[in-house]
Structures are given as structure tokens and as C-alpha cells.
């Protein structure tokens, strides 16, 4: 029974990882039939690559800030729209909607809103203002990118928190009320504590997803201005396919994979401790 699943893992995960690992030790440009083996050279280059370091910082900002806010917003909204009622049902659907739109469409949509000639700046200009460089100035561009990423991701975290909230045993809430707990105490000491496994899943999934941010950057800022909003994935794809350095791009991809693995394990371990504390 296990064989088909293992075969799928082999073909679709382990073999590609193996190929990426091999390519990362070559100077392949995507066209040469037999790439030259260059050992660890590509990995040595990574740490001297200034734009890559900058892309790593941008990715870290997106991953940390995006994960925290997408989860905080998702949890907050889940608490608001949890329970019966037509308005809440409509609100749940509407709030989840951004997540089902493709990242590229979201990027184009928000670039039409935030661009130098976009909707917001057109209104500001019409009112006699000077406009805001949402996508034209590095700090603004990063802020805009992170906000759009949060907007695009809070829907799915909200749905997972809703699922978690609906499995909480009602008698515990009642017991908390009888014990005289106020709303905050009920939330913090009962609901949030019992949601610990959902929090873990949400944090890990959001973090992994944001560490790989690509399409939204492509459609919203194209990595600009001046490459200041490039994420690691965006940089890897640019280096690999636009600059014809697939070997070097593969080395970066392997390293990113390792980083994601480490972050996932660390985050899960941290959350497991929190879950154990709740169980105790």
C-alpha cells in the first residue's frame, strides 16, 4: 500500500532534489549539453553575492512580518465571524476570497491601485496632492508588498482558525464563564491555548509559503525599484533563466530548501513545546 506513495515521493520530490543538487555543483547555463563540474564553487559565491543577501533580507522581512500579521488578522477575523448567522456566513466567504485569486492577478490588481499612475495616486493628484511613491521608492515598495501579501494570505489562516474554533468543546467555555472569566481571559487562557496545534500549522504553512514568494513580486513590483523588492525565489529565477546561470541558481535553490527545512523544524519544535504546556 505504501509503494505508490513512495514512488510518487521518489519521482516528484527526491529525484528533482537530487538533480538540483547535482546541477548546483556545475556551471550549467541551460544550453550546454554537458555542464562542467565545478565542485562547491557556486556555494562559495553565494555569500559574496550582494544582491542575494539583499534578497534574503527582503524575504526574511516578508516571511516574518507577513506570517505574524496574516495570522493575527486571520485569527482576529475568525473570532469575529465564527458562529451562526447569515452576515457571518457572507463575511466568511468574502474574507476568504483574496486567497482564491491567483497571485499574479492580485499583483496586477494592486499595481493598478498603488502604481504611480494608479487609482490612489490619481485621486490624490485630482485633489491637488503630490502622490505617494507606493511602488517607486524602496521603503514604500516593501511596505506595499508586505501589506498586499498579508491581504492575499489572511483568508486561508482565517479559515483554518475557524475550523479550529469550531472543534473546541463548548463545555470548556461554559466552565470558564461559570468560573467568572472575562472575554479576554476566555480567549487567551481557553480558546487560544486549545488552538495551539492550529496555530502551529498556520505559522508553519504561512512561513513556508512566504519564504517562496515570487509571483506577487513579479506582478506588483517586478523586483523594483532598482531590485530592492527582489525575494530569494525571484532572484533565483532571474539568475537561472534570464542570466543563464542555472548551476548557480540551483545552488541557491538547494540552500533555500535547507533554510526552509530548518525554519520549519525549528518552528514546529517551538510550537510543540507550547502545545505540550497546554496539555499539561
Amino acid at each position: 500500500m505504501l509503494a505508490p506513495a513512495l514512488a510518487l515521493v521518489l519521482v516528484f520530490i527526491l529525484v528533482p532534489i537530487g538533480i538540483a543538487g547535482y546541477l548546483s555543483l556545475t556551471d550549467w547555463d541551460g544550453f550546454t549539453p554537458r555542464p562542467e563540474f565545478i565542485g562547491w564553487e557556486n556555494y562559495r559565491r553565494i555569500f559574496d553575492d550582494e544582491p542575494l543577501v539583499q534578497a534574503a533580507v527582503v524575504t526574511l522581512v516578508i516571511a516574518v512580518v507577513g506570517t505574524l500579521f496574516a495570522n493575527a488578522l486571520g485569527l482576529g477575523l475568525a473570532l469575529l465571524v465564527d458562529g451562526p448567522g447569515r452576515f457571518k456566513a457572507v463575511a466568511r466567504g468574502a474574507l476568504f476570497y483574496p486567497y482564491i485569486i491567483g497571485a499574479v492577478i492580485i499583483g496586477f490588481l494592486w499595481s493598478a491601485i498603488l502604481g504611480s499612475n494608479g487609482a490612489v495616486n490619481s485621486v490624490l493628484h485630482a485633489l491637488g496632492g503630490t502622490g505617494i511613491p507606493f511602488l517607486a521608492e524602496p521603503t514604500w515598495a516593501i511596505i506595499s508588498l508586505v501589506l498586499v501579501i498579508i491581504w492575499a494570505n489572511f483568508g486561508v489562516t482565517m479559515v483554518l482558525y475557524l475550523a479550529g474554533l469550531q472543534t473546541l468543546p463548548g463545555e470548556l467555555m461554559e466552565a470558564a464563564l461559570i468560573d467568572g472569566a472575562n472575554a479576554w481571559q476566555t480567549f487567551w487562557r481557553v480558546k487560544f491555548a486549545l488552538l495551539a496545534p492550529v496555530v502551529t500549522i498556520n505559522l508553519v504553512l504561512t512561513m513556508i509559503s512566504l519564504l517562496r514568494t515570487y509571483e506577487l513580486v513579479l506582478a506588483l513590483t517586478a523586483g523594483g525599484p532598482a531590485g530592492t523588492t527582489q525575494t530569494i525565489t525571484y532572484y533565483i529565477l532571474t539568475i537561472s533563466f534570464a542570466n543563464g546561470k542555472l548551476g548557480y541558481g540551483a545552488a541557491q535553490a538547494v540552500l533555500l530548501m535547507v533554510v526552509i527545512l530548518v525554519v520549519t523544524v525549528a518552528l514546529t519544535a517551538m510550537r510543540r513545546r507550547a502545545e505540550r504546556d497546554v496539555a499539561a
Partner: protein
Amino acid sequence: MTTTRRRFRVISATGLALTALLAASACGGESQDEADGKKTLRMLVNVTPALPVTFYEDLVAPFEQAHPGVDVKIEAPTAATGNVQETLTQQLAAGTEPDLLGGQTTAAEAKVMATLPNEPWVTDTPFAKELQIDSRQWTVGASFQAQSLVFYNKDAFQKAGIAAPPATVDEFTAVLKKIKQAGGYTPLETAGEWVTAAQFQQLANAVVMQNEPNWYSKRTKGEVTFANSDYKRYVEVYKSWIDDGLVSKNANGVKYNDSLVDFTSGKAATYVMGNWAVPTIDQAKPKFGVGVFAAPSFDGKPVPQVGGAGDLYSVLNSSKHKAEAFELVKYLVSDKAAVQKQLVAEGNFRTGFSYQASPLTQEVQKIVDAAPGAVVAGDGFGDNTAPSGWSAELTKILQKLYLGDSAEQAIAAMDKWWTGNAR
């Protein structure tokens, strides 16, 4: 032990079966091909608003009618960037490359292209010789594109009291200053994305390569540098335009399409772009007169047009239907109706081929006729090619000028990047 071995066999067999299934599905086109008794030619093309997939399908329809045994399948780029080159690289890595490529390619890609025959239908095409790499013809174009063009709003010029288009860079700067002083227009429309580098090259390459047509090649050999060329002078001019507010300081946040709309809607007074912008400008029916002049030079002498072959086609070495693919390329670059259809789509040019051109295209034609030759655009072509990724890097370097970098920093960054990436 026996159980483990059996398990391993089951896993291996399932893996092999899956791999075979995947391989069979990848070759699905060919099986279909053989079943129909038709040969399918897959052509990956550059898709733009002026050249949608339907344009290419119409373009190849007469060829398919004349060759009942051949079916041409037009494929749009699948890379997230929509870029032909990136898609080709990805397909090569996956072993799913097409038979033909329609679009600008680089020297690196020449390695996987078939050598085209030394026949008149190849040698008589625009820039055939310049496109060669190591005397090998691996790509061929149906038309010529001109890029060193400055479109201008005649109303804005009149309002600012400008009687004639500028011929020198200094005069151009003076014109932009007059427009700014008169008010009501962005003097020069620039944009983010690829536009930042493209516009700069459309202006600066014309000047720099006027005397050094093979500048890219010489830079790779280390015989010239940005710091010791007219690029330095042009970067200083460009920086002064930013500092003096002659371009929008928020231009980095403007997309290509929006920059075109800014010009056609009358917000900008001048716009540097290739002739492919003409059909869009014509279709927008601006409420003002649109004129065009050639990129200015430092000394007032006419400069060559940055440009080169357009509507390019190559055949991949790995194609199983090479003879048919060559036939298709021959049709695309030499059939009168096919060439004319391509010329009209982007307002391109070709000696010996004429079509009902708009007044603006006719003006561009006059500029092309008066230009002393042509020099490379973008990453260059043939032996005169920049290292892969040059245009993208130049975009970043120039956009930093808007963010506070000095001209000296930009020039130093250009030399540093080229030296580090030249092979």
C-alpha cells in the same frame, strides 16, 4: 530480507512505470502526430498586445494550407515573466523544447539552434550577416525595427514655444526645460520595468556606437569601458534630467502600458520608444498632433538607429521535422503576404516591401531612411552581444539614479557588472 527486496522491487517497478507514463505523456504530441499522419511543428512565440497568439495562427494558416501534412502549433511563453527566452531555457531543461522559436534570442541560445542554409531567402533578410555567430546563421528576421525614436506632443511643443525638434542632446535638454517651465506636461515620460534600460539604450547606444559599432564585443574583450566612453556622458545627462525634474521622480513605479497611456492621453510631452509603439499610438487616436524625431547626438550629426532585425525565427537542433521547420521559416521571412502582415502588426520596415502606413509610420520611415545605419539594442546580437542579463542589470543601475545614486556610481556599477559577467 525477502520482504524488503520485494518491497524494493515494487517501489522500483512503480517508479519506472510512472516515469514511463510521464515520458509517454511528454511525447503525446508526437503520438497524435503519427496517428493523424501529420507532422506537428511546435513554435514558441513572443506574445505582446500587438502580436497575440491569434496573430501567429492567422500568419501560419496559409502555410498549413499549402502543406497539408504539416500542422503548426503556436505556443505562448509559459514562464511567469512571459519571456520567450526563459520559457525556452525551462523547456530545454525539461526536454520539452519546441521545433521553432519566434522572438529575440541570445548568443547562449545559438548553441541549440540549427544552422540555416546559405540561400537567398536567408541571406537577403535584414541584418542577416550581423545576426551570425562565428559565421553561423542561426536566426533570421522578417523585418527591421527602429528604436532611437522620440515621439512628441506637438501641442506641448507649441505651448512651450519650441519651433523645431532638437538635434543635439543639449538642445533636447533645453527643450525639456522649456516644457517644464511652460507647465502642464511631464517633459519626458520614463517608466519602471524594462523600460528604464530600454529608453536609455535607445538614446545612448545610438551615440556610443556611432563610432564603435561593435562596442559590446570590445567591452567584453576589455578594449573599452563605460567610464571612458560616451555612456558616461549620457548617464550624467540622464542624472541631470532626474535632478532637474524633467522626468517623474516616481517613474520607477510606472508600467510600460501606463507610460504609453501617459503619452497618448496628453500627460507627457515626449516619449522615447521603438517603432512598435506606433500602432498603439495610432489606435489611441490622441487629441493632439504626434510628431517623431531621431535620437539626438552630442555633435548634432545624425546617429544610427538602435534596432535591428525584427520578427526573428530560429529552428532548434533537436527538432525531428527540421526540413519542414526550415520551410516554415522560409515562408515567414520571404512570403510577400506573410512579411507584410508582420510589418503592419508592429509598424516595422523592410526594403522592397510596402504597406498602407499611417502618417506617423511614414515619418518614422523617413528617419530610418536618413539614419546612417543601425546599431544593436538591448543585449545585442550576433558576435556583438552583452553578457546574459545585461538589460536587467542596467535597469537596476539606472533606477538607482532615481533613488539617489550618482552618475559615477552608476558607471562604476556598469563596468563592475560587465567585467564580472563577461565570458
